[in-house]
């Protein structure tokens, strides 16, 4: 209940700000962006985030599954170490460095977002699969489940909530990071925000940044719902959520 109040208040402030600013005519000497500009930027922003997330997920989850296979466990240490180091790097550095590596353009932006978005998914997927009680896996083996059956019927369903949490965390971070991606040629709400930054106009910054924040919060909320919905009932009871 209290949580919903907090959530709705913040969303109301962000959306209210966006609507109010967009309805203004001018800020100082600058024109505000029109509704159609705002909407098309928002759509481009969302699209960029979704593409990056889909690619990141389809790399990170199989990679996590791969390094948790019994024969390939020695790959896990370097891969997870890499993911940890990667997450320590500042997002701005990862994005900026794409310019000298790949040049300016949408693909640089998406590659940067993918790489940065991949790390939390990889870490969570690995933890989710790796933290399953060994006794559960052994019971499955002892009952004659094949390796594929253990992966499909035991490991994935049990790790799914943790994997989904990784995707949620990654998506929320990527929505914010995507603002910076305009610096290397990305599209989206960052365009408005950086116009405001250069003009040193807080309201113009907020015209881009407030809807970005709202988008992050809303996506986070939706993905959290999906996460709960995907959590097997037997696990919900365990965690006492029910």
């Amino acid at each position, binding site marked *: 209940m*209290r*949580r919903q*109040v*907090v*959530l709705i208040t*913040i969303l109301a402030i*962000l959306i209210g700000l966006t609507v109010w600013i967009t309805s203004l005519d001018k800020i100082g000497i600058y024109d505000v962006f029109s509704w159609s500009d705002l909407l098309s930027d928002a759509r481009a922003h969302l699209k960029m985030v979704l593409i990056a997330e889909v690619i990141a997920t389809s790399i990170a989850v199989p990679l996590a599954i791969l390094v948790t296979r019994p024969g390939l466990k020695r790959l896990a240490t370097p891969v997870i170490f890499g993911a940890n*180091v990667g997450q*320590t*790097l*500042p*997002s*701005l*550095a*990862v994005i*900026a*460095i794409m*310019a*000298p590596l790949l040049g*300016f353009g949408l693909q640089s932006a998406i590659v940067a977002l993918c790489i940065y978005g991949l790390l939390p998914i990889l870490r969570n997927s690995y933890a989710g699969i790796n933290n399953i009680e060994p006794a559960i896996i052994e019971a499955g083996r002892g009952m004659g489940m094949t390796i594929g059956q253990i992966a499909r019927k035991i490991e994935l369903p049990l790790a799914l909530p943790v994997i989904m949490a990784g995707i949620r965390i990654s998506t*929320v971070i990527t*929505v*914010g*990071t995507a*603002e*910076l991606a305009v*610096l*290397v040629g990305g599209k989206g709400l*960052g365009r408005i*925000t*950086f116009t*405001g*930054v250069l003009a*040193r106009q*807080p*309201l113009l*910054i*907020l015209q*881009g*940044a*407030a809807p*970005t*924040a709202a988008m*992050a*919060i809303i996506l*986070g909320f939706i993905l959290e719902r999906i996460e709960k919905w995907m959590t097997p009932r037997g696990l919900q009871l365990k965690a006492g959520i029910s």
Partner: protein
Amino acid sequence: MVEAWQWVTKHPDKLAGWTLEHIWIVSVAIAIAVVLGVALGIYISRPGKEHIADSVLYLAEIMMTVPSLALFGLLMLILGTIGLKVIGFLPAVIALVIYGQLPILRNTYIAIREVDPAMIEAGKGMGMSERQLLFKVKLPLAVPIIMAGLRNAIVLLIGITAIAAIIGAGGLGVPIFRGLRNARMDLIIIGGVSVSILALVVDGLMGRVERWVTPRGLKRR
């Protein structure tokens, strides 16, 4: 790459300046964030404050999802309205303090709440007052977890400080943005690599500190 290195050998003073500036901003912000976060964490972990705790932690969690540029914008707006400087050091530090809250606050809260009730009862049984219990039992046991939160916060703030350069705070974000604006790849590399090294080194150091402050009895092996 080669140009970047040549530039560094030519202007080591500039790189050192940005780096020191970066460390200074993060240090100031983290000092304030720790005092605030730990105090608030202790306060909301007291019995009977569960509802406030839940709302505060949730608020901090949501604030983490707000992109830094949005927070900068918001702070500039508020500071402007009350007549303070809207760019530079002040809005940057305020934003950093806010971002530093979640890891520190949450870890403090969890650490104190999760102290074994048996230990608290033992303390009470020996006649410790609430205050003595907090300082002699709860906090020492919570220190390693609070340190882990601090470590996360510092690494996070080093990253956000780089972005704060765009509102005139200075630091290693300066060459990155300058390079991006003027397509000066050498500057981008210098800024990006330096700030990454800074984050990795500080993370490594904090890992050491974390182990060092863990009470001997709690260390694993």
